[in-house]
């Protein structure tokens, strides 16, 4: 008779937890699932990569660097769409988080080149603007993190819907502006205007970009809680870096408008 007589008689366990795939996933070691530490380390790595490439384009100006920055931005955009798709409209392009370990470094490095170029040009016009913009970006991010961790800001589906609509609205405004600028050679006055309207627009965009950080913190938090696969660390870190870069560029633009 078999040693596992009970199993032979009654079959496999009826306990849904033991039967389900969830048990197998939970039984994996910590190396296999997303952790907060892992997401933080990857965010730090991506940030260091962005700063490194930004330093290169800051120090070596010229037409060649302009071309490299252009290629960098194009590669970053392709990487972002390849990973996130249009997650608000998942039926158009589905998000593919498993690509994040490959696309996140490309995005960080590519955007770094563009950031260095833009920052250097604005720094020559408004000395000290880069330090101010970087400091304010991290101050806003740290403040929102504390508000999120303590539960003061609690994102729900309505918050997600509002943020998705607002972000998409800004995205289409910038795309329309880009097409308009390519066709006519001038851009929308609301974006470039240094008057009250332009400053107001930049302020609204900064607030929306900042609130997007809350969604990124929630992605990382839930990925660690639900023991998702390891690549979600890269995905969360990429989302956070994307929003930080966006926030930095908008704060840079806002300060430039205020100082001009």
């Amino acid at each position, binding site marked *: 008779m078999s040693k596992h007589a009970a199993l032979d008689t009654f079959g496999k366990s009826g306990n849904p937890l033991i039967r389900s795939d969830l048990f197998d996933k939970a039984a994996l070691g910590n190396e296999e699932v997303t952790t907060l530490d892992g997401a933080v380390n990857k965010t*730090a790595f991506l940030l260091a990569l962005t700063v490194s490439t930004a330093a290169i384009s800051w120090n070596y100006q010229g037409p060649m660097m302009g071309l490299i920055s252009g290629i960098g931005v194009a590669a970053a955009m392709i990487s972002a769409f390849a990973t996130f798709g249009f*997650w608000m409209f998942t039926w158009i392009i589905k998000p593919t988080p498993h690509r994040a370990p490959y696309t996140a470094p490309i995005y960080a490095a590519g955007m770094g080149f563009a950031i260095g170029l833009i920052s250097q040009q604005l720094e020559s016009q408004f000395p000290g603007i880069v330090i101010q913009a970087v400091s304010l970006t991290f101050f806003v991010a740290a403040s929102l993190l504390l508000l*999120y961790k303590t539960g003061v800001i609690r994102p729900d589906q309505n918050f997600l819907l509002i943020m998705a609509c607002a972000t998409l609205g800004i995205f289409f405004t910038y795309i329309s502006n880009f097409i308009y600028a390519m066709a006519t050679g001038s851009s929308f006055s609301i974006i470039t205007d240094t008057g009250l309207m332009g400053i107001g627009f930049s302020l609204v965009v900064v607030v929306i970009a900042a609130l997007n950080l809350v969604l990124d913190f929630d992605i990382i938090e839930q990925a660690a809680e639900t023991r998702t696969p390891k690549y979600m660390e890269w995905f969360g870190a990429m989302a956070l870096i994307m929003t930080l870069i966006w926030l930095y560029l908008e704060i840079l633009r806002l300060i430039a408008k205020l100082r001009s």
Partner: protein
Amino acid sequence: MSTITLFLALLGIASIIVLFYFLRFKASSRQTDRDNRIPWNKIFFQRERYNETKASLEKKNSPKVSEQTSGQDDADFKD
């Protein structure tokens, strides 16, 4: 370097430390223990969940030939 730039630089360094330090901590129960959280898993793992469910249903519906033991004979119906 102006005073405001120096102040902002110090604020920035402190903010970076705070950001990377507190990001490692789990959020409070006020944040995590609630029903109206955003279902990120549903959004990002929609395709994986669909494939898993489809595969498990196919497995469930397929005939279980392997479970038939060799000792069991087919029923022999005689008139």
